[in-house]
């Protein structure tokens, strides 16, 4: 089985994240890049499926040159090889452009299964997997907390507001996973050493027949009009519990008409 796991490098959420004043895109240079947390679950799920069913796991990343750090981490966890889509023309791409570019690469490299984290911690749109399914004409098996494959049939448990739906489809398919679907492994020393020798193919947009006028900031379907640091919340009233803390909190709730 040919499994492609999509991984994104995102700014470490523990650092202060900013938009650039010039083009209103994420300032990636100002912060440390880490693997998007939910994508680690995607990598783990890909590895588990490979272990159970055989095949190969390819890491696919779109991002600037430094995203190779993220690729190496996924390879160190055990993925077999990687494709890195990187091109200055991609800078500022929104979800529509990103899904288009990724779909073009996926069509080129082929897949039985595409796995992603259900959202990234930077943009948090949560739309990429659905958009990829739409663009690829592949079944959308998203928000999975469990994935089972038997032959060419794939069944997932899709989380819903009321619990979960059991959803079935035929491969090839697009799967997104939620937190806690598994317990992502840490790269071993051996894995880290082996990752250095694994093949990483670098693609520019022309290599994947990605039209330059469909990607990047100028092509974006939506734009940031303005932005500002959130004003600090007005300092609240903080009291020390002297045995009447609950009662005082109730007074506050009453003053705000909550009770």
């Amino acid at each position, binding site marked *: 089985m040919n499994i492609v796991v999509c991984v994104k490098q995102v700014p470490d959420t523990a650092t202060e994240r900013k938009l650039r004043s010039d083009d209103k895109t994420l300032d990636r240079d100002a912060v440390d890049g880490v693997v998007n947390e939910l994508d680690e679950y995607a990598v783990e799920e890909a590895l588990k499926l490979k272990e159970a069913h055989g095949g190969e796991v390819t890491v696919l990343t779109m991002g600037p040159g430094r995203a190779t750090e993220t690729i190496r981490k996924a390879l160190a966890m055990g993925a077999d090889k990687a494709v890195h889509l990187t091109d200055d023309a991609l800078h500022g791409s929104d979800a529509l452009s990103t899904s288009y570019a990724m779909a073009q690469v996926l069509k080129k490299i082929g897949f039985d299964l595409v796995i992603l984290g259900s959202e990234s911690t930077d943009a948090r*749109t949560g739309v990429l997997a659905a958009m990829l399914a739409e663009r690829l004409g592949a079944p959308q098996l998203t928000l999975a907390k469990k994935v089972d494959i038997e032959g060419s049939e794939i069944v997932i448990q899709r989380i819903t507001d*009321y619990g979960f739906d059991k959803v079935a489809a035929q491969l090839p398919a697009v799967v997104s996973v939620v937190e806690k679907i598994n317990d992502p492994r840490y790269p071993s020393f051996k894995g880290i050493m082996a990752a250095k020798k694994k093949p990483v193919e670098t693609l520019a947009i022309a290599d994947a027949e990605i039209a330059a006028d469909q990607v990047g900031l100028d092509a974006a379907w939506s734009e940031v009009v303005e932005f500002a640091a959130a004003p600090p919340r007005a300092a609240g009233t903080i009291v020390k519990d002297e045995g009447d803390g609950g009662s005082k909190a109730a007074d506050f709730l009453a003053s705000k008409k909550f009770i």
Partner: protein
Amino acid sequence: MSEILVLVEHVDGEVKKVTLELLTLARSLGAPAAVWAGPGITDAAKARLAEYGAEKIYVAGADEIVDYVVAPKAELLAQLVADKSPAAVLVAATTEGKEVAGRLAVKTDSGVITDAVGLGEGFVADQSIFGGGVNVRSKVRKGTPIVAVRPNSTAPEAVAGAGTEEQVSVTLTESARAARVLERVKQEKGARPELTEAAIVVSGGRGVGSAENFSIIEGLADALGAAVGASRAATDAGWYPHQFQVGQTGKTVSPQLYIAAGISGAIQHRAGMQTAKTIVAINKDPEAPIFELADYGVVGDLNQVVPQLTEEVTKRK
């Protein structure tokens, strides 16, 4: 006035509150047209939609709209966008709502904005990003604006619309039938409101200390008619089910009132609750970062403070 399509969120034939909010928002920008996807619409539901301003109610009642994951709803909306040329499409920013919006954006070659907490003239949307650290105003510049709006962004106001019903039939493509729902498993959530939609959320964290002790949190939630949430520390420890986790990798809530008990307020948590209108924190550590967000904070042991608060709430109701 141009139509604004609002995808109705419904469960067991009842319209969810977020839809009434979206109709209210749509009314400030155009003529709201509710879109009911799937079987089960009732006269009461139609009356409710009209009561909150729906001029039109498009009903696509075929079973197959809900027999497959997400794609049929996107095809239904795409057909309506083509037929009715609405000024915009609004969906609730739930996980599924955002997926519908995403597919619709691809189908109609339109821009999409997710997790709006406000929407104004020209469909300029307000968003709060990076864990609440930055406020952004953005807009769609190609196609029909598609905006996923967070629950509790607007207070629903009843101003009656005509509520003219129109049946819609959709012929689904083969690829929209690719992911079939075999079974819906409903997990017991009791009488509490849904976490992402609730007007009040009471959450517990590491300070709660044990699974059993979450009954303190539940007690306060029930007194207030609130939903229960939990921090990642609490769900990781197995004290409360993971689906109730509020935070960066869990649910995002934006209630009128958020009460955090025994939660320090790390970025992981703040990213999921920072747009709450009013925040109350109870924590024994006076240095806990949650107090920087709190409109009202009590430094103290939640085992004392929360039960007393519960008792007071019950008494004063």
